């Protein structure tokens, strides 16, 4: 007979899920009343302020990967692992100046695909869409699967049911409220995530002295305290570049720039990055304390709930369950909305139905959210194992887009040939390193190759790009 003891009872798990689900769907429906136009549904009216902007940036970046993988990084790579994970904040911080530039150059833009198409032309646009949609979909699937796995591991809810419920809830409120619902719920989710992490961290400090944790680590796992751990140091750069690549290319982040008011964009990314920066350190600390608390870790990704249960009892596990649920929901809803935007604007409108009205696109966008949710559910259903490897595989692909995007926004001389060659060369060399050296080198090599190629082509074939071309609506009116 198989015996499995869960961290909280399935009844408590269902109560938390039901409470949060009703809240999210209710708020999605309430905010959805604002989302009548296409700009309202896709971009929350383009006037989102600093508070909601900062919270949505921070909450979306706290995926289940942060709450599950950051403790795992700490347990496997030690202090450097915590620092390595924190460097992903640089993705948000470095995107801040780009956010300002994007809003100035493309005041009526919709997607990151818009920028690549207008800046580099159709072939680069198609290549970029392949990378971006592949990455977005893999991220979506990995979140859906993580939801099912977490609910099963924490509350004993069957994988298929847990995964279906979280996907259904996120699809429902995104469908009703579009980006209004996504950003509004992100605010509440970000507060719950931050408060939950502080509660667990402070509780650990109250039960065990830090010098006890440190001396236990020094005796039992001295490698975790090592200041010279080459693989971990390499992971710092890899994580940093993967993070930068993810943020620079993904429509999740571009759509937020278009959604925020002109003044809020840059500041929201700076503040969101600063708020996110300490989260992996705090989550990693909870993992490092597990030894001193006498917790036997059989699954490193479950260390958060186990420590919470140990230090706070059942109330603690409910807190951590809420943190996980919020982390998943805040990323799932963003991915559904932004991938749907990308497909609606870049594929449906630009390739299939160029004369579609706003109302028609609004309906199409809703249907695409539904289809995306259904396809994600179908792929998640067989529980094909971990998708973390596939997500890391996407690392060099997204890292190869960093330089075509950054130079394309600031250098008039950056050109189409360089962008295409940079994305292809960066992706190929990165993948070669992924298979021959390891995941921790792939993004680093992909970004470095792409940088060399883009800079070389910029000097060999300098373009004279007219920035006004990026403001498509104004350009069309002038024409």
């Amino acid at each position, binding site marked *: 007979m198989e015996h499995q003891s869960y961290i909280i009872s399935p009844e408590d798990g269902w109560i938390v899920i039901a409470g949060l689900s009703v809240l999210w769907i209710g708020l999605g429906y309430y905010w959805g009343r604002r989302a009548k136009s296409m700009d309202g549904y896709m971009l929350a009216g383009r006037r989102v302020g600093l*508070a909601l902007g900062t919270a949505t940036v921070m909450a979306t970046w706290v995926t289940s990967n942060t709450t599950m993988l950051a403790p795992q990084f700490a347990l496997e790579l030690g202090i450097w692992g915590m620092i390595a994970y924190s460097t992903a904040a640089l993705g948000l911080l470095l995107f801040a100046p780009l956010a300002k530039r994007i809003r100035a150059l493309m005041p009526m833009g919709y997607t990151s695909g818009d920028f690549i198409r207008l800046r580099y032309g159709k072939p680069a646009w198609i290549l970029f869409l392949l990378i971006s949609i592949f990455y977005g979909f893999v991220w979506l699937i990995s979140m859906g699967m993580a939801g099912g796995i977490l609910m099963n591991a924490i509350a004993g809810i069957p994988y298929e049911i847990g995964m279906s419920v979280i996907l259904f809830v996120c699809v429902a409120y995104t469908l009703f409220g579009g980006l209004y619902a996504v950003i509004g719920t992100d605010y509440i989710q970000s507060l719950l995530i931050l408060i939950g992490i502080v509660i667990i*961290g402070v509780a650990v400090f109250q039960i065990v002295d830090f010098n006890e944790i440190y001396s236990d680590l020094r005796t039992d796992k*001295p490698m975790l305290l090592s200041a010279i751990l080459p693989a971990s140091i390499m992971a710092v750069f890899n994580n940093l570049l993967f993070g930068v690549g993810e943020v620079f290319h993904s429509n999740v982040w571009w759509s937020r720039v278009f959604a925020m008011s002109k003044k809020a964009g840059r500041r929201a990314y700076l503040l969101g990055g600063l708020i996110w920066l300490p989260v992996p350190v705090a989550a990693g600390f909870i993992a490092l304390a597990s030894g001193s608390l006498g917790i036997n870790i059989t699954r490193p990704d479950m260390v958060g709930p186990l420590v919470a249960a140990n230090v706070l009892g059942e109330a603690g596990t409910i807190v951590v369950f809420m943190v996980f649920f919020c982390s998943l929901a805040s990323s799932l809803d963003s991915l559904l909305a932004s991938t749907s935007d990308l497909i609606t604007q870049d594929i449906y409108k630009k390739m299939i139905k160029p004369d579609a009205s706003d109302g028609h696109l609004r309906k199409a966008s809703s249907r695409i959210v539904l289809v995306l949710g259904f396809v994600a559910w179908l792929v998640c259903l067989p529980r094909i194992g971990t998708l973390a490897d596939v997500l890391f595989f996407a690392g060099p692909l997204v890292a190869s887009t960093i330089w075509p995007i950054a130079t394309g926004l600031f250098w008039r001389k950056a050109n189409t040939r360089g962008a295409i060659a940079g994305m292809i060369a960066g992706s190929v060399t990165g993948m070669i390193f992924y298979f021959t050296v390891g995941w921790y080198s792939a993004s680093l090599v992909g970004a470095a190759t792409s940088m060399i190629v883009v800079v070389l082509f910029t000097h060999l074939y300098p373009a004279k790009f007219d920035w006004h071309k990026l403001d498509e609506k104004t350009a069309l009116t002038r024409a």
Partner: protein
Amino acid sequence: MHFPELFVEIMIMISLGLISASVIVLIVLLIVDFVKQRVW
């Protein structure tokens, strides 16, 4: 060579402090946006 205990402890304490402060910052920002009618 190990990371010194004090360094690690300060890093963790600062992190928890920053996260706590972030909650207050987010609430204050929302109040300010609400008063100035620029939430959405």
